[in-house]
């Protein structure tokens, strides 16, 4: 395997890890208004992701940074081509990120309500838009002869990309609910609400994934280039999703979370397989010849060799200490009326 291919798949891995990890912390934030009825419950739900969300979010910076260094042309075309979407994602992440710290700094109902809203909207918007972006990567952008992307906001929203957005949004909500099952005490009422949410949003997520795959097949010719084996991925995404229902009804929470994680993995990999098998990382909707290919967007060999060394050393290290972080904070959370302490 040459380094261009290797790095294409490492970027796929980075995006997959990002969707897997931030997927559940987005999900928790989106579900919180419907799950929490009291202030301690609100705090318990935030507490389930408190020590993790920041480390999870860095994976998207890693995805952008690795894309910049190994596929600069692809990076430039995607990020400038979908400019309004990335602005919206950035604004959402800005407000959502600070909501964690700022929500309880001022003792006022309206202040808290404002930041709750920010953390909700700030999670819904990126959850939806990442699906739109992934769908647009498959569908293509108006790339012109010079490899520049021209096009406005409206072209970002096609039926296929909107369905893609709905799919990631629902998948993340399901994933967040499953994560809560692992993080909340099983004897709390919150835990029961999270189970019901997982079943409810899981059903909708299944519909969305099936819809996305079928539409990808019918209108986008998504799997024409897949050959026999890669069919495995969309089918597997559906099967894992279906198995969640079984796992939930048998109270196998770990299995349910693993399965929603695998669904996200299969869904993301499907997008990257679609790009890889066509050899185009950004197809053109203007003329098939204008699409950006893997080779022409990649960095030179020297940079790729250097990045391979760097990635080879640091990626396992990062994954290692992040796992340790999850291990340290493995205890389950319960809503606690406990006092707010005074002073330090």
């Amino acid at each position, binding site marked *: 395997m040459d380094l261009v291919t290797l790095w294409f798949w490492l970027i796929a891995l980075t995006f997959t890890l990002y969707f897997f990890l931030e997927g559940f912390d987005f999900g928790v934030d989106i579900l919180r208004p419907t799950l929490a009825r009291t202030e301690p419950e609100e*705090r*318990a739900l935030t*507490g389930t992701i*408190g*020590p993790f*969300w*920041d*480390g999870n979010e*860095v994976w*998207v*910076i890693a995805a952008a*940074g690795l*894309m*910049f*260094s*190994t*596929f*600069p042309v692809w*990076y*430039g075309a995607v990020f*400038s081509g979908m*400019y*309004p979407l*990335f*602005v919206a994602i*950035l604004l959402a*992440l*800005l407000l959502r*990120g*600070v909501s*964690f*710290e*700022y929500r*309880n*700094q001022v*003792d006022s109902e309206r202040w808290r309500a404002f930041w709750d809203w920010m953390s909700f909207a700030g999670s819904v918007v990126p959850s939806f838009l990442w699906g739109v972006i992934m769908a647009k990567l498959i569908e293509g952008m108006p790339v012109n002869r010079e490899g520049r*992307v021209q096009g*406005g906001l409206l072209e970002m929203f096609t039926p296929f990309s909107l369905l893609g957005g709905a799919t990631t949004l629902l998948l993340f909500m399901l994933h967040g609910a499953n994560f809560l099952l692992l993080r909340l005490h099983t004897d709390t009422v919150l835990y029961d609400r999270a189970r019901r949410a997982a079943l409810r949003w899981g059903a909708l997520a299944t519909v969305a994934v099936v819809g996305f795959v079928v539409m990808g097949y019918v209108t986008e010719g998504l799997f024409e280039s897949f050959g026999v084996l890669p069919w495995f991925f969309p089918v597997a995404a559906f099967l894992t999703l279906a198995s969640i229902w079984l796992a939930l009804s048998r109270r196998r929470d770990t299995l349910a979370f693993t399965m929603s994680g695998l669904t996200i993995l299969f869904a993301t990999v499907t997008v990257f397989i679609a790009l890889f098998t066509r050899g185009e990382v950004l197809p053109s909707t203007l003329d098939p010849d204008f699409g950006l290919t893997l080779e022409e967007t990649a*960095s*030179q060999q*020297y*940079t790729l060799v*250097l*990045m391979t060394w*760097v990635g080879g050393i*640091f*990626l396992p290290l*990062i994954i290692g200490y*992040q796992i340790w*972080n999850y291990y*340290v*904070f493995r205890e389950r*959370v319960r*809503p606690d009326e*406990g006092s*707010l*302490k*005074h*002073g*330090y």
Partner: protein
Amino acid sequence: MDVVELSRFQFASTSIFHFFFVSLTVGLAFLIAVMETIAYVREDRRHVYEKMTNFFGHLFLINFAVGVVTGIVQEFQFGMNWSEYSDFVGNIFGVPLALEVLMAFFLESTFIGLWWFGKDRLKPWMRLGSIWLVAIGTQISAFWIVLANAWMHHPVGYEVVEGQARLTDFGAVVFNYKAWLYFAHVQGSAWVVAAFFVLGISAYHLLRRQDTDVYSASLRIGLVFAAIGTVFSVVSGHTEAQVAREDQPMKFAAMEAQWETSDSPAPWSLVAFIDEEAQENSFNVEIPIVGSVLAYNSFEGRYEGLIPLNEEYQELYGEGDYIPPVAWVYWSFRIMVAIGSLLLATAFLGLFLWWRRKRGLEETRWFLRALVLFIPLPWIANFTGWIVTEMGRQPFMVYGLLTVEEGVSPNTFGEVLAGLVGLWVVYLALIGLDIYLLSVTARAGIHRKPEAQLVAAPAPDYEGVGLQGYERRN
């Protein structure tokens, strides 16, 4: 205004807002690590240093998150607004950026959580290790991003092939002398920001005679950092200016508003009315000889003016106007230097007061009052410093290789404007909130509960029981 101007303005605003938060993060992480180390080592004084660590740690966390999220904008905007630039430099410029993420961002964001939340579940040495990893992470992060920036000012280790800068020698990029100078300067400046932040807050409470055991100690830690930081900044800044005279002469001439080549020995301009249209200074107060001393450490030596340099640049790089916005650079430079000198003097005056009498610092109340007033000054110096270095290299984006106009994305005016307005609204809100919350929490001090506490980071208690929402082990 066109797309280029808007994009430039957006990049400048994002970088300046981002640096507002991260300069405090980078400096304060180190100070807190030192505080916690003292708490760990000195058992007899542990209660004092633990309170100090937690108090400043709380302030650190209020500010930390905003630095993180504005950093995402930084990382995305190269592709979003400068896609042509990204195509051109990605082979080289992307590497330090990726290294920054892999070596620093993950480290900081993971271990900050472990440090703060893990207080009741990690062993003391692990907590100490965590804050040191955060502190080291912030320095690594500063190093790589400044290295990337320095490459834009002084490109090395590359060749241009098919319209792309290709990496030929990564060692040359890492050992770019400009990078190390910039790093020393940014590092020193971040320490100055954090040191004067700690000094000002400590002085505020000492003036009210609250918790003098804690704040006297933090004042002394702050002073040591302030002294080291200001010396670092001044020495590296001085060297930077001298180096700029050689490798970015246009920037140097703009800093001095020197239109024609100077005499030898060269005077130093103190105040000038700059007429950029007519390319002359209508009024100029000059101090003889000082210009040569600053530029050459010598009593003679001349430097080239903007007008002759512009002609040279035109021969080198083709038709065009290569003179940067002179008045901006000139005045920003002067403000930065004035503040830097004032802070250097303040730090050493503090050390002198400390050395002269045991309670000399606590009893010199005018000095404490000055420290409170000086809190914003390092930020102003940083802001003006970035204006000098970044405006001074206009119109180039990569010095001598790519102009700003060539680097911009093919975006429409409307989408860039809409994004810019959105970002500005959020930035202003965040900076306002950050300052408001920092000052409320800082003034509340150690015993009064801050208005409420951080959700993601409940106020800790070393001896006490667990944190909200978590069960204690066993």
